[in-house]
């Protein structure tokens, strides 16, 4: 167990073609991460059709590499432009931008990339060891257990996501309802089509992702009237080496942030809260807490380490349980299904070369990634100097091409525009989008798990409480659902003032 598997994986990951794919993926991913309006999730969604003609392993390597690239790219805009390219890089701007302003941009970027790398590596190591174990446990799961896990997935959005819990629940339900549109896989009846043939196929979540995150985001950033006033920075080998000399001092921050990142990350919506939490902890324990917010290098290290650790950890439940930890992982999961692979614990026994190739490619991808971003920072920063009037239509055209390519259907582009408007409105009203997308992806799985469970139990919901594993998970899920109700009561009991509302966009 273990060593020979990962060696097998490296044999898959280090073929010239797969390395080439990884380089392309990281390049595209970083560009996507730098551009406003294009994040990991819709970047992966737009390029998903491109992978249809590849072998699945190369396909997933391309998609994961885009994801790593997007994670790295977010740091560039945060530090140099004070614009978080991704929600989880918001905390990086607190100290990264002041550093760049005072001429330490190169140092801040080196610190950001290095900590991203360390955080990612930590999570990959844990995945390498835990994924097979988790998959083995999951093999014994029946429908009730899977439904319980899905409950848990969504309850953690409600309980830990921040924001209005009711709106989160509504988002989840909209996602599930959209997923039921079309052919019922169990009985073969048409549902919610109201006689329109166009609705028969149902809504594809890839289109929803492109519309909600891509178009919606563009509309938002146009409204805010983005202007890019960047700080120019030089990054050269000397700066990199000098920074590397200081960084080992912060090993405590690295370890703490990696653990926070991994722990938050394998639950959905984790990367953004993880980066904020890690920043807060670093500030709390640091000797120079007073310097936080004014350009403290530790304030860059902490959120970046956690965000990357969380981003990588989101892959763990996707490959072991078939339940994605983030919208990006959800899109990848959709890719697996399209390539004809059944995501879930069986992957480990049936397609070991795929799973271990993927895990090994996480190592190679992140090594390539950190080297590439360090070498090409000026190039990536230059992308943001492209005038907005060119970027905006370009991004919309790319989104349209991406949505069309999924099914070669014109109707999908209309859906994309529609989802774009919905995404814009929902974002403004604080309806979280990530749970909606996840529910849309998991809808069919969740429904069939629920129905099979009910068939097993002759229609009694007690089945979720009588099987030990299912019961434990269900109870935890119920606790998380109830958390927004419990917390204010608990605070009053202790006489503490209610905590200030922390805006957290669960969107990784």
């Amino acid at each position: 167990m273990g060593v020979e598997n990962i060696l097998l994986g490296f044999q898959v990951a280090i073929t010239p073609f797969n390395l080439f794919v990884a380089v392309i993926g990281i390049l595209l991913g970083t560009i996507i991460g730098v551009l406003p309006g294009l994040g990991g999730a819709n970047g992966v969604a737009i390029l998903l059709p491109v992978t249809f003609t590849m072998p699945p392993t190369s396909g997933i390597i391309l998609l994961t590499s885009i994801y790593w690239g997007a994670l790295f790219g977010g740091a560039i805009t945060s530090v140099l432009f004070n614009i978080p390219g991704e929600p989880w890089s918001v905390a990086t701007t607190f100290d990264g931008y002041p550093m760049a302003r005072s001429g330490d941009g190169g140092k801040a970027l080196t610190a950001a990339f290095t900590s991203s790398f360390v955080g990612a590596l930590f999570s990959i190591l844990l995945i390498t060891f835990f994924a097979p174990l988790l998959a083995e446990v999951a093999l014994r799961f029946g429908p009730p257990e899977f439904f319980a896990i899905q409950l848990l997935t969504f309850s953690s959005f409600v309980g830990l996501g921040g924001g209005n819990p009711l709106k989160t629940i509504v988002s989840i339900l909209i996602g599930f309802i959209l997923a039921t549109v079309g052919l019922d896989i169990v009985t073969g009846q048409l549902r919610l089509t109201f006689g329109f043939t166009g609705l028969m196929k149902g809504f594809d979540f890839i289109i929803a992702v492109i519309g909600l995150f891509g178009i919606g985001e563009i509309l938002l950033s146009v409204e805010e009237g983005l202007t890019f006033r960047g700080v120019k920075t030089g990054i050269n080998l000397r700066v990199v080496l000098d920074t590397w000399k200081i960084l080992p001092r912060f090993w405590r921050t690295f370890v703490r942030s990696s653990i926070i990142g991994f722990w938050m990350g394998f639950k959905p919506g984790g990367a953004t809260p993880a980066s904020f939490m890690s920043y807060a902890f670093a500030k709390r324990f640091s000797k120079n807490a007073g310097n936080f917010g004014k350009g403290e290098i530790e304030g860059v290290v902490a959120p970046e380490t956690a965000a990357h650790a969380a981003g990588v950890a989101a892959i763990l439940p996707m490959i072991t349980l078939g339940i994605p930890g983030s919208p990006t992982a959800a899109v990848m999961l959709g890719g697996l299904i399209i390539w004809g692979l059944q995501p879930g614990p069986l992957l480990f026994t049936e397609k070991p070369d795929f799973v271990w190739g993927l895990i090994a490619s996480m190592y190679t991808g992140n090594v390539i990634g950190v080297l590439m971003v360090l070498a090409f920072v000026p190039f990536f920063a230059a992308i943001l100097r492209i005038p907005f009037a060119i970027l905006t239509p370009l991004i919309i055209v790319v989104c349209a091409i991406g949505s069309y390519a999924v099914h070669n259907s014109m109707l999908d582009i209309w859906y994309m525009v529609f989802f774009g408007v919905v995404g814009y409105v929902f974002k403004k009203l604080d309806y979280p989008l990530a749970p909606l997308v996840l529910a849309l992806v998991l809808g069919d799985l969740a429904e069939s798990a629920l129905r099979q469970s009910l068939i097993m139990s002759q229609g009694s919901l007690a089945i979720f409480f009588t099987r030990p594993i299912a019961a434990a998970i269900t109870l935890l899920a119920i606790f998380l659902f109830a958390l927004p109700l419990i917390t204010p009561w608990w605070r009053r009991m202790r006489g503490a003032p209610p905590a200030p509302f922390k805006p957290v966009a669960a969107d990784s």
Partner: protein
Amino acid sequence: MRAADLITASVLILLGALVIVDAMRLGIGWGTDGPKSGFFPFWLALIMVVCCAIIMAQQTRITTRHIFVDREKLRPVLTVLWPAVIAVALMEWLGLYVASALYMGFYMRWVGRHSWFAVVSLSLAIPIVSFLVFEKWFFVPMP
């Protein structure tokens, strides 16, 4: 902000009601071999309607001074949205590449006020590049 919230919640309640009606048609109870087709959507929609109703009730109690979007800011949003909608409509009969070339050219000239040379060369270059990438390298056919 409040008005927008109320409108969104009512639209969602209407949609929920629609789903419930369709679910009733399909049957929400126990069929011969398990729950009927309408079972899952019915409960989803029911909970959604209840949640939206509570959101509406919450909104009527609190008053916020936030406005959803002011006219000043809405303008750039619409200048992105309407041309995009028109471009999508054009794609149906002009094909994706021609329509996106027109769209990009229009947007760059009208909003960005770039020179005609830049407009024409870029709006031709980008569809051609994407054509090459998608159709030649990855064999994904486009309209």
